[in-house]
């Protein structure tokens, strides 16, 4: 703290700092968030106090942590004759708060920045980068197909698509939430008995599950492949599916 004050004094005499503004305090000055403001600062010799943290304030808070070079650099920045300080100085070896971005730095062309930003957006929208391509096999069919699970927004849509692909089967009724009610054992058994085929999937753990046991998005994230199997065979899956479902709940 002492070092800090001394520093501020030295600088102050050179640059007519408004000391009230630059007075050290551990609390947040004027309620301005430290983290959010980052290091975007005005040159302290400028008379404008526009609510941003004064440069020397940031100096003081970080002096303990900074190396000698960085202190020198800060001096340099303060010496700047009012030239627009577009950048803060951030040489804090400890992880600093999120910095305000400097114009044109790093020197990546805006063309490239935009493209990467667009890529990021579209992948964020779909919840994952890339598509969720999974192989679909149907018992008795001679070939495999592939579907991109990201193309569908619900089990119903998937069901329709699969029905088109493998026109010989229909899936059972998935209930109002679009999910199988595993809790109700008898309902489940009805479902499996009434359909010729049921879709099952292999999840991240390698287990074969009945499609429809988890919310749609979770299914998309964990499904590795699909298998449309005969209802009678699927009954074997049901108890395991119920157990897993219960353990999740």
């Amino acid at each position: 703290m002492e070092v800090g004050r001394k520093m501020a004094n030295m600088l102050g005499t050179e640059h007519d700092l408004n000391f009230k503004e630059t007075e050290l305090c551990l609390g947040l000055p004027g309620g301005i968030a430290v983290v959010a403001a980052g290091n975007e600062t005005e040159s302290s010799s400028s008379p404008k106090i526009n609510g941003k943290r004064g440069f020397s304030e940031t100096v003081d808070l970080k002096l303990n942590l900074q190396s000698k070079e960085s202190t020198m650099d800060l001096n340099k920045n303060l010496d700047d004759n009012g030239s627009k300080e577009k950048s803060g100085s951030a040489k804090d070896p400890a992880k600093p708060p999120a910095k305000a971005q400097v114009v044109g730095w790093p020197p990546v062309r805006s063309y490239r920045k935009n493209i990467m930003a667009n890529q990021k957006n579209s992948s964020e929208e779909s919840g994952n980068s890339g598509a969720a391509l999974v192989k679909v096999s149907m018992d008795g069919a001679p070939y495999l197909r592939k579907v991109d699970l990201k193309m569908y927004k619900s089990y119903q849509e998937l069901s329709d698509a699969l029905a088109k692909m493998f026109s010989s089967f229909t899936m059972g009724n998935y209930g109002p939430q679009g999910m199988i009610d595993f809790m109700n054992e008898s309902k489940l058994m009805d479902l499996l008995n009434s359909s010729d085929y049921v879709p099952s999937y292999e999840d991240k753990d390698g287990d074969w599950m009945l499609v429809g046991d988890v919310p749609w998005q979770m299914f998309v994230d964990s499904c590795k492949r699909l298998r449309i199997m005969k209802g009678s065979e699927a009954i074997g899956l049901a108890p395991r599916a119920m157990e897993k479902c219960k353990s999740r709940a």
Partner: protein
Amino acid sequence: MSEDDERQQSPPSDLEFVSNKARNCNATGSGSGHPEFQSTYPDQVLENVLENVLHFLTSRRDRNAASLVCKSWYRVEALTRSELFIGNCYAVSPGRATARFTRVKALHLKGKPRFADFNLMPPDWGAHFNPWALAMAKAYPWLEKVHLKRMSVTDDDLATLAELFLGFKELVLVCCDGFGTSGLAIFVSKCRQLKVLDLIESEVSDDETDWISCFPEGESNLESLIFDCVECHINFEALDRLVARSPSLKKLKLNRYVSIGQLYCLMVRAPQLTHLGTGSFSPSDIAGQGDQEPDYVAAFAACRSLVCLSGFREIIPDYLPAIYPVCANLTSLNFSYANITADQLKPIISKCHKLQTFWVLDSICDEGLQAVAATCKDLRELRVFPVDPREDNDGPVSEVGLQAISEGCRKLQSILYFCQRMTNAAVIAMSKNCPDLVVFRLCIMGRHRPDPVTGEPMDDGFGAIVMNCKKLTRLAVSGLLTDKAFDYIGRHGKLVRTLSVAFAGDSDMALKYVLEGCPQLQKLEIRDSPFGDAALRSGLHHYYNMRFLWMSSCRLTRHGCQEIARAMPRLVVEVIRSADEEEMDDVVGTLYMYRSLEGPRTDAPKFVTIL
């Protein structure tokens, strides 16, 4: 220049040089255009011979040297220069250029300074192609090729090129803007001899015109069509038909609106391609789900001449194995828009033994770079771009990757490397392992960041580069740097022509070292460094030898810059204000100065003051 008064409009042709020479002889000599004595016969012969010989001189530096020998050589060189390169469009006026060089077939022009790419300059600063287009329409009706970089080109300019130059063959626009798809439509429809249309990293506005359909029917001469930067939908059927009727097509780079299924169709049509930009490399939304996927592997396998592969704009990594068949022949691979991991890269890069140019994102991490180093022994150029260009503390690539590359790729000539951390040791290692380095651009994204292992500035690393890499002509520095680094550069960077500096140095001495020490310096761009008027003065002896000097957010004052402007009349000293600066501030936000034969330009916008 008297010989220009009777400038002939004849197309340049070797067969006609005798008759041209005769005509030109009448116009030679001093005076204001009066017919002069006919040169004596021996002189004529000598000039004929000279002209024949100079036709073979292609390097512009050699030509510049030749033109200085004597008046006769100056004249003949001017007559035989068919490719005109102007590195700063404001250094000379269109009129002066066309007056001196009368038989130009190809024009290469550069406009805005490079830092304009990073939003350091307000738009509409200048570099308009229009006056050049008009001047050339009068002077070089036989013009075949135009290559522009960082110029502002309008739709009208494109129309001019297509309409007024009947034999126009090649248009290359790099980092240009100001035009749209409607300009492209007019251009391609009227330019019947077109061989090359390359739009590279340019901004093309979407006027919702289907320009691909505007290519004339019938067999096309197209050899190269590059439009990967065009951010609008294109008519695929028209493109498909165009490719089908372009038997000479060798280079095709698609934009991200072309799906992988569509790519397949085009590849099947054009297996003779040598350069391919794949477009999105993912299926389109409307592709029939579960439809039989085309055999992408076979399509790539059929392209036996493919040496350069790029694109992958919205890559779905599952499709990457399709390119395996071409990897062994690739000399250039651009993954710089593909956010792939090391594991996704490895199976590909391990097959790319002949690779010389590799652009990639740092998503591959140090591990990916190690894989590159293990296989690509012939690598000449490497560029590693950041997926997330922000200043955080952690980054996927570091000194580990750089070290690996330096050990594996000994023939490296050019490197651009973005990272969050770097050590002097790794940079020194590269300086020793890669003595052929011509371009070294290291961007440590955290400003003023020292060596994380030693805590030292990065001076020694960059010092080693300039000391050990004797062929170095281009250098970009970053990280924590004191004046010492610039002392090294000044003392050892004897061939350095381009230097980029940001957030570096302690005092004016740094800039002095460079200006006094680097005799070949031509392009110097500096931002946010503590260099003031005294430093600026130390370069007075050298500024006429430079193409330009850029200094933004340094410590220059208006009167300091004025001094320079007064001392050097052939220098144009521009002070560029950003939006919130006052006109009469003594402080200079941005200085951009360049040598010019023309004095202050007349098209400067309001935010530019020419001192």
